C-alpha cells in the first residue's frame, strides 16, 4: 500500500499537494509541535524528580498528534487514547490540566463543556466503540459533524477495533479511525502484533477505505485526515488511517525500553524527526532563521514553565471529593462513609 507523503525528512516537498495548506497554518503546526515536545520533555523530567506520576512520552509523534487534530472543524469530536497530548493542546485543552491529571489529580481530566473532546482512555481500544456510537448519534441527529478517534498499533488486535470498524462500514458512519503506528505496544513490536504488512489494509475487511500516511510528516497527516474528515462528515464514508511514526521514548516512565529495543533502531528514526523537517521547510520557503527559531522555543518554554507553575500551585483534592460524581444523588451507603471520612480527617487524618 502506498505511503502518502508531502514533506520528506530533508525538507523536500511536493508543491502541488502543499498548495491548499496556508502559510499561517504551517506556522501554527510548527509552534504546536514545539510546544508539545517541550511539554512532554518537561513532564519526563518532572516525573524523574517525583513531581509527576507515571505517564507516556509522545516524543516522535508530534506531527501525528498535531496534524490530525488541526484537521477537525468546530462540531467534530476527538476521541483519544493516552498518547495524544499534542492533539489535546491543539484543540485547546490546557497544558496545566494535563500536568494536573498525570500528577494524580482527577480534575485535570475534566474536559471543559465547550470542547468536543473525550478524556483519556486507558483500556486499549475501548474508546473505538464509543467513537462508533457517537457517529451513530451524530448521524441520527442530522448533525454536520464527524468523529475522529486515535489509538495505537496495539489496539488493532482488540475485538473492539474490529467490531467498531464493522459497525462503521455497515452503518456508513461519519467516523475516521486514526491509528498512530509507533511500532511498539510496550515491548511488543508491530510485527508481533499482526501478520498483515500494514495496518491500513485491515479496512478492506469492513468495506471501508484504508490509507497509510507518513506520520512524521505533519503536512500529509493534516491534509489526509482533513480530506477524510470532510468525506465522513458530508458523505457518511468512514475511513481507517494508519499514521506511520515512531515512539522515541519508553512506553511510559515505568518502562525501560533498553530491555527489549536495540538502540540503532532509534538512530534511523531520529533522522526522520517530525519537527526538524518542518524547520528545514520554513528555512527554505518562509524566511525562517535560527534566531527566530530560538525566539519561538524560548516563548514556548515560558508557556510550559507557566503551566508547571500553575499546576504546582493548584490545591490538592480534598478527601471528601472522592464521593463526588458517582451518582446524581448520593445514596445512603456513601453518605455514611462520607461522614466517617470527615470525622477521620477532622481528627487529624489517617496515618
Amino acid at each position, binding site marked *: 500500500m502506498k505511503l502518502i507523503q508531502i514533506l520528506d525528512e530533508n525538507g523536500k516537498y511536493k508543491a502541488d499537494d502543499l498548495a491548499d495548506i496556508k502559510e499561517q497554518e504551517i506556522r501554527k503546526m510548527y509552534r504546536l509541535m514545539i510546544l508539545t515536545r517541550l511539554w512532554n520533555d518537561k513532564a519526563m523530567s518532572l516525573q524523574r524528580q517525583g513531581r509527576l*506520576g507515571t505517564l507516556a512520552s509522545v516524543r516522535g509523534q508530534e506531527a501525528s498528534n498535531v496534524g490530525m487534530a488541526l484537521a477537525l472543524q468546530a462540531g467534530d469530536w476527538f476521541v483519544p487514547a493516552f498518547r495524544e497530548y499534542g492533539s489535546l493542546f491543539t484543540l485547546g485543552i490546557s497544558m496545566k490540566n494535563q500536568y494536573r491529571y498525570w500528577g494524580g489529580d482527577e480534575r485535570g481530566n475534566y474536559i471543559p463543556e465547550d470542547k468536543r473532546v473525550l478524556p483519556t482512555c486507558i483500556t486499549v*481500544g475501548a474508546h473505538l466503540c464509543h467513537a462508533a456510537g457517537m457517529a451513530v448519534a451524530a448521524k441520527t441527529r442530522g448533525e454536520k459533524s464527524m468523529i475522529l478517534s486515535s489509538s495505537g498499533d496495539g489496539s488493532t488486535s482488540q475485538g473492539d477495533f474490529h467490531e467498531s470498524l464493522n459497525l462503521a462500514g455497515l452503518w456508513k458512519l461519519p467516523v475516521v479511525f486514526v491509528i498512530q503506528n509507533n511500532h511498539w505496544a510496550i515491548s511488543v513490536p508491530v510485527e508481533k502484533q499482526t501478520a498483515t504488512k500494514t495496518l491500513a489494509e485491515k479496512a478492506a475487511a469492513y468495506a471501508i477505505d484504508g490509507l497509510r500516511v507518513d506520520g512524521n510528516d505533519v503536512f500529509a497527516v493534516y491534509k489526509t485526515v482533513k480530506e477524510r474528515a470532510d468525506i465522513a462528515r458530508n458523505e457518511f464514508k468512514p475511513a481507517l488511517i494508519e499514521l506511520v511514526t515512531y515512539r522515541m521514548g519508553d512506553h511510559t516512565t515505568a518502562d525501560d525500553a533498553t530491555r527489549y529495543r536495540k538502540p540503532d533502531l532509534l538512530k534511523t528514526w531520529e533522522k526522520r524527526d517530525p519537527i526538524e523537517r518542518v524547520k528545514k521547510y520554513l528555512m527554505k520557503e518562509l524566511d525562517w532563521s535560527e534566531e527566530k527559531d530560538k525566539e519561538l522555543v524560548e516563548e514556548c518554554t515560558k508557556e510550559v514553565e507557566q503551566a508547571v507553575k500553575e499546576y504546582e500551585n493548584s490545591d490538592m483534592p480534598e478527601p471528601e471529593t*472522592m464521593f463526588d460524581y458517582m451518582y446524581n444523588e448520593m445514596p445512603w451507603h456513601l453518605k455514611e*462513609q462520607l461522614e466517617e471520612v470527615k470525622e477521620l*480527617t477532622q481528627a487529624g487524618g*489517617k496515618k
Partner: protein
Amino acid sequence: MTVKTKTKSSESDSSKRMLLYREALNEALKEEMKRDSTVFLMGEGIAERGGSYKVTVDLLKEFGPERVIDTPIAEASFVGAGVGAAITGMRPVVEILFIDFTLLTLDQVINQAAKYNFMTGGIGKVPLVLRTQGGVGNGLAAQHSQSLEAIFYHIPGLRVVMPSSPYDAKGLLKTAIRADDPVVFIEHKLLYMNEGHVPQDDYTIDFGKADIKRTGSDVTLVAWSNMVPKSLAAAEKLAQQGIDVEVVDPRTLNPLDKKTILDSVRKTEHVVIVQEAIRRGGIASDIASIIQQQAFDYLDAPIEIVAGINTPIPFNLNLEKLSVPQVNDIIEAVKRVL
C-alpha cells in the same frame, strides 16, 4: 521494651533461603514447566520483557517461544485460546497484567471455562490458570488499582487463590497448575518485592487450607493478600499495648477454609475481617455471614469489617491511601471489638 514476635518463624528465619514474592512465582513456573511439558505461558510482554513485574524473566530463554508466548493486546482471544488449549489437555498459565483487564475476558472465564466441566458431565476439564495482579500500587488510578476478587469468588466452577507471602506464592501456584479446575490466581502489586523464606524443594500447598500467620488469643484478624502484612503490622503494634492478635490468612478464597477461621473465632471470641476491596458486596461480608451463622454463640462483639471505601480508587496518592485500609484502621477496628 522487647516484644516477643509471634509471627511464624519459618518465613522469617534468616538462615534459610530467602526469595522475593516475584522470584518465588518465577521458580514455581520454571519447576512446573520442567516437570510437565503441557504447561505453557501466554500473555502481553511476558517473553522478551519478562513481564512488567518480572515474574516471567528468563523463562523464554529456558523454554523457547513455543512455551513462553507473547500475545497481541487481545485479552478475550488469548484467554479464550487458553480455554481451548486446556480442553485438549494442555495446562496453560495465562497472564493478564492487571486484574482490571480481566474484565475484557469475562465471557471466556465465566461462561466458558467455569461452566465447561459442569455442562459436559465431567468429561471436559479446563485446567487453566489465569494469573493476574490487583490492588492499589502507588497512584495508578481507578482502572489499574482495583480489587476484583469478589467477581470470581461469586462464580461457581472457579478457584480463587490470593497468596500473601513468597512461600505461599510458590506452593499455591504449583497446586494451581496441577489442578484440573480453572484457577484465578491473584497476586498483589505491592507484594512482588516482599522477601520471605522459600524452600528449594518441590512443595505444594493444598487449596482450602488457611494459614495462621500469627497466633494470638484476644482477637482474630482474617485477612488475605496485601492485607496480611498490614494486619501483622497492626498486630505487632497492638501487642505493645497488651492485645494479643491472631492473624488468619485463608490463602484460597474458593475453596475457603471455614474450619480454621471458625476454630480461631471460637478461641478468641472477637473477629475483624480485613479486605482491600470495597466494602459493598465483598468477600468479607460473606465470611462474616458464615461466622455469625456457625459461631454466633461464641462472639462477644459484632463482627467488624475493615474494607475499602465504596468509591473508585482515586488517582491522588493521599486520597488513595484514605480509600483502602491502613494499619491504623485495623488497630482502631480491633479496639472497637474488644
